[in-house]
């Protein structure tokens, strides 16, 4: 897996680079600012990019904007965005093109390296991974008329884990049910959210997007 890393703090950049190399990833480029990131994304065309939201020169959401810009030019370019804080606003912007291949995680998730590398692979394969904190905030909303309200409690559990980027196998393990049961729940979720039948990965992305927009 070829990875571009964009992080302005030298120690963290080195740390992520070493961690990924230890897991057999190939670091195509490790950059420290927005313009260098765009250049690296467009010239290296990595399998996945790890991007810090806040980057120089502006020290605002430079990294996020660079990632969005690169995805406009290379649709579906897999990007895992890391940040010290998560915002639903940014999550929506990342998912808005419906192309998938998007992750949005708190930086501390890097600490649990096995999970982190799993997440990276999911994103590289076109999956969608939202931080549990984003998902928790979504669940805390009690909107009454949203399509999400039509889901059963079990279906919400499944959707939550789906939003966190888990595969059906992982969801089945977590909820102590069979994989078949999970895929039945998934079909029901897609129907309740009015998602037309299509390739299943894409429907998962759309389901998460519907969840975010609820």
């Amino acid at each position, binding site marked *: 897996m070829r990875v571009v890393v964009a992080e302005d703090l030298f120690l963290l950049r080195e740390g992520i680079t070493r961690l990924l190399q230890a897991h057999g990833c190939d670091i195509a480029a490790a950059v420290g600012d927005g313009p260098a990131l765009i250049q690296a994304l467009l010239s290296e065309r990595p399998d996945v990019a790890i991007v810090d939201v806040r980057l120089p020169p502006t020290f605002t959401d430079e990294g996020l904007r660079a990632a969005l810009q690169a995805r406009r030019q290379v649709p579906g370019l897999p990007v895992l965005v890391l940040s010290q*804080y998560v*915002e639903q606003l940014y999550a929506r912007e990342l998912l808005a093109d419906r192309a998938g291949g998007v992750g949005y995680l708190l930086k501390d998730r890097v*600490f649990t390296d096995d999970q982190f590398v799993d997440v990276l692979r999911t994103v590289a394969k076109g999956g969608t991974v939202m931080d549990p904190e984003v998902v928790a905030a979504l669940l805390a909303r009690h909107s009454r008329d949203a399509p999400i309200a039509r889901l059963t409690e079990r279906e919400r559990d499944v959707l939550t884990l789906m939003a966190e980027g888990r595969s059906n196998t992982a969801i089945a393990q977590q909820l102590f049910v069979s994989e078949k049961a999970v895929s039945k729940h998934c079909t029901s979720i897609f129907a309740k959210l009015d998602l037309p039948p299509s390739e299943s990965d894409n429907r998962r992305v759309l389901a998460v997007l519907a969840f975010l927009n609820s």
Partner: protein
Amino acid sequence: MFLGLYATFLTGWMILMFFQVIGNDYYTLYSGRGLLAMNAYSDWFITSIGSGVVRDVMTSALIMAFGVWLVPRTIGVHAGLVQRNAALTSRVTRLAETRGTAVDSAAAELRRLERDLHDGAQARLVALGINLRAAEHLFKTNPDAALALVAESRVSSALALAELRALVRGIHPPVLADRGLADAIRALALGSPVPAEADIQLPGDPPAPVESAVYFAVAEVLANAVKHSGAGHVHIRIAYQAGMLRVEVTDDGHGGADPAQGTGLAGVERRMSTFDGIVAVSSPPGGPTIIVIEVPCALSLPKICSS
């Protein structure tokens, strides 16, 4: 005011000088060359002006007219000054009040931050150091125990991070720093447990302190609506017109919000008063609750936005 008075006086004085000069000049001009010698009347007139009789009468009349004209104006100016003085006095009192409140709340806020850091992240980091030191000692003799301590340290560092994150949001929310007021409010609406809609029309960015004050004011009002109103929907409107930033937060809850009760709305009022902002609350029993915040400010060019 004083400039006006001075200008009036100067004009009067110039009129007087003008007549004096004309009087003398006519005399020297015409009598000297004898051009009007045939006209006795004119001659008398000019001589009289030159000699001072008519001139003195005219001068006195002018001075009197000037006096009659000046006196009511002076009185008017005086009354204006008294009024302005009163207005300034009340303004100074108000500024002293709001400045006092601003300084007090800033100091209280710093104390709270210090306490939160001391009891939270700082304490966790101390524990982390102790755990790691213990793990160092146990590393050779009891690797399993050392491993457990290191794992505990990792959890502890994650908790410290979570606490720091919450603190940073309370000081200056990252979206506000990244994107400015409009997107920060949109993010606030998105994160609200009660569905909230944000309708924001801002041609530019307010100054940073106003932006921050308005953000926290809206956050407080929204939190109040979520906690107390029983609302199913909240609508936030922000617009800017003629030097005034206007925020309107409407919820469809049961109303009865009282600014005098609880610290929430009073706090919003205090926060806004530092910027000469005002807060109006309309919350009849049965709802809806409408809270309007108005603050005068100038807008700068908008921040660059990705969308």
